[in-house]
């Protein structure tokens, strides 16, 4: 039998860690609120059914797009049970959500996570007493290491026991209103929780129930008048009183007021003056290590391996097999040059992803939101928008999805529109090739300057988009939970690094492989037949179409034009194309380029690649998240004009100033 179990809880309580433990999946985890923005389905170990990982919510009443996923799921889909993860260090707050889940009346199990954090704060929870108070099973777990998860898994009930929904007494007036709504909206007795959610103003239920029976609006208004305060404030208070009573029966508290590590670190990284410089220093160190210290030497080793043993090996095997010259050229000049040219950057990209995972898992992201909020506000955005932007440094696709945690719709859209300017890892190979050959002594600085160029232009673009999309009374919501810092765990870090990095490797095997073959064929053939001089090939004709336009930017060659066109598939393909065109391996490529580019035109080219168009995968995710063809077109194409303008400025100003 396949039963469906939903995983619910407050944000950042370790739901996804538990999901990964229980299903053997490797979904993305982090230490900030809003890591999971969509529901994910996994198969439970031991064929126990399906587990559905839902975005974290503080309350079933959704304030943002990702939170609405939860309320919709509970209302519309059928499921057999729930696992509710509770952060033991924030018991009372977590229990307010638990109350709402217990009201639903489905079988529920509670995983009590982060007992260790609670203990350092002087709070000890008696899990058995808590279970007795709540009337459901409670399992102490450590989701990050997996302790206790097995027990939780093995006790997922096989058949649905009959659970009676929790009934909190909301006071006479509210109870009367609940009864009235159940009657008017024709709800079942076990759907009482929907009436409660409705009265609390849960947007999803308001929309659903008021459409069904508009008369209930009167009941809600009347109750608000009688209570003389916001109904949701009253309902929350009743739930809080319930939670306080539960807590009193299950928690031993000792007052401890010692300074925690989190306080000490926060005193530095969110320091009024040092906060911002520290943030940029963190970014600089990240790039310096990625490029100069770890990534580059490893990439060189891998490059030497591909050029040396692998290439010679393939040539040897091919000659032994008596392969035709065509096949030999295709494999060596096409596939190995194209795919190998990109694969050598795998170490750099993994190092970058490792650092991004580290930042996500440590809790620093929530601080970045504070440090950046003022600046983001100036351009009509929100400090929270900066988290998706940093994720975008890894890959724009998850960055754009992470924008769902930005509550205000206009801010979410603007965050999506500017995300493609965040320099993703696929652009790294291009920088590595160009910066490596033209700016060898200060690579990290040059690359950092491109990242900053991207950020600055993104902010300017945000300003423009905010103006265009300005709604009547769009008030921005900024409330960011500041979780305690934690030292990221080795295994978790490795998993999320691998999770992000494997996409890059997979792309090399599919898109870039296919692209390389096609590009090589286009370069090999021409109107004059096969094995033509490359300058007379189809590829040269295609690239030549736009080469004219690129002259003012400093790189008006058909080679650059062809690389840019094919780069729409995936940005790494720019490097593959160049490796194929110049029929050289990656380390040779730099020397070849020296003949065609100057440092100035190289910089102009890098800036153009950074900005010109989002890759195919990014366009697809923009389409899905924005839901409008018109805005997808705009978001995908405005970069082209920005790129042209900026590269023009860089090249022409640089030229006028006497740089070459």
């Amino acid at each position, binding site marked *: 039998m396949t039963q469906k179990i939903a995983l619910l809880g407050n944000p950042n309580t370790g739901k996804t860690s538990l999901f990964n433990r229980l299903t053997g999946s490797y979904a993305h985890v982090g230490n900030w609120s809003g890591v999971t923005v969509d529901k994910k389905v996994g198969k439970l170990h031991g064929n126990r059914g399906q587990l559905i990982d839902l975005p974290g919510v503080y309350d079933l009443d959704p304030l943002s797009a990702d939170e609405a996923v939860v309320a919709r799921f509970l209302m519309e889909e059928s499921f057999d049970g729930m696992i509710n993860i509770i952060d033991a260090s924030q018991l009372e707050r977590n229990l307010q959500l638990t109350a709402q889940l217990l009201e639903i009346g489905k079988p529920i199990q509670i995983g009590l996570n982060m007992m260790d954090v609670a203990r350092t704060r002087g709070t000890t929870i008696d899990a058995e007493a808590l279970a007795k108070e709540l009337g459901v099973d409670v399992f102490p777990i450590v989701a990050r290491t997996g302790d206790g998860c097995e027990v939780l898994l093995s006790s997922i009930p096989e058949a649905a026991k009959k659970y009676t929904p929790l009934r909190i007494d909301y006071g006479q007036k509210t109870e009367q209103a609940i009864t009235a709504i159940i009657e008017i909206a024709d709800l079942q007795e076990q759907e009482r929780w929907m009436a409660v959610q409705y009265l609390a103003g849960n947007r999803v239920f308001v929309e659903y129930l008021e459409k069904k029976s508009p008369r209930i609006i009167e009941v809600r208004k009347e109750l608000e008048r009688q209570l003389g305060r916001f109904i949701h404030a009253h309902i*929350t208070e009743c739930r809080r009183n319930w939670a306080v009573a539960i807590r009193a029966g299950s928690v031993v508290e000792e007052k401890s007021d010692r300074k925690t590590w989190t306080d000490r670190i*926060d005193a530095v990284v969110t320091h009024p003056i040092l906060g911002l410089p520290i943030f940029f220093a963190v970014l600089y160190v990240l790039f310096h290590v990625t490029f100069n210290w770890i990534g580059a030497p490893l990439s060189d080793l891998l490059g030497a391996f591909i050029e040396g043993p692998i290439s010679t090996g393939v040539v040897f095997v091919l000659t032994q097999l008596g392969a035709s010259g065509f096949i030999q050229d295709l494999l060596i000049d096409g596939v190995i040059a194209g795919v190998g040219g990109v694969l050598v950057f795998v170490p750099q990209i993994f190092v970058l992803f490792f650092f991004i995972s580290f930042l996500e898992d440590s809790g620093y992201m*929530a601080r970045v939101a504070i440090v950046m909020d*003022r600046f983001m506000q100036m351009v009509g955005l929100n400090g929270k928008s900066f988290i998706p932007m940093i994720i975008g440094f890894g890959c724009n696709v998850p960055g754009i999805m992470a924008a769902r945690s930005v509550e205000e719709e206009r801010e979410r859209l603007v965050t999506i529109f500017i995300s493609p300017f965040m320099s993703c890892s696929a652009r790294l190979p291009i920088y590595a090739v160009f910066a490596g050959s033209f700016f060898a002594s200060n690579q990290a600085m040059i690359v950092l300057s491109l990242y900053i160029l991207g950020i600055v232009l993104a902010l300017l673009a945000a300003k423009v988009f905010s103006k265009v999309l300005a709604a009547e009374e769009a008030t921005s919501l*900024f409330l960011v939970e500041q979780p305690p810092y934690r030292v990221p765990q080795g295994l978790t870090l490795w998993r999320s690094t691998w999770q992000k990095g494997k996409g890059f490797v997979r792309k090399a095997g599919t898109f870039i492989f296919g692209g390389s073959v096609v590009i090589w064929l286009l370069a090999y053939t021409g109107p004059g037949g096969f094995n033509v001089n490359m300058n007379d090939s189809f590829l040269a004709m295609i690239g030549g179409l736009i080469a004219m336009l690129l002259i003012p930017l400093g790189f008006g060659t058909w080679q650059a034009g062809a690389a840019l066109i094919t780069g729409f598939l995936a940005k790494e393909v720019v490097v593959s194309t160049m490796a194929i065109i110049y029929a050289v391996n990656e380390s040779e490529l730099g020397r070849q380029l020296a003949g065609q580019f100057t440092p100035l035109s190289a910089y102009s080219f890098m800036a153009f690649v950074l900005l010109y168009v989002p890759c195919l995968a990014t366009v697809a995710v923009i389409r899905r998240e924005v839901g409008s063809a018109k805005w997808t077109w705009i978001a995908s194409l405005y970069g082209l004009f920005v790129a042209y303008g900026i590269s023009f400025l860089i090249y022409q100003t640089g030229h006028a100033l006497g740089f070459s």
Partner: protein
Amino acid sequence: MTDLAMIPIGKPVVMTDLNKIEDRLRRRLLALGFYEGCPVVVRRRASFQGPLTIEQRDHHQMIAIRKSDAKNIGVFLP
């Protein structure tokens, strides 16, 4: 009675008025355990009039909110 934005860092106060802030912010504050009558303390202030980090003293819940919103939250100095 004064507002949260005026309170010096480290001074324990009690939240008394959440009526003047925007609805969604109030809902989120309530869900995070900040209510009228709860004890809070300002922990940090970001530069350039940036967000305040405040802590719910009963359960050490830390959140950041904007200064402009903090101005609309009434507090009482015990």
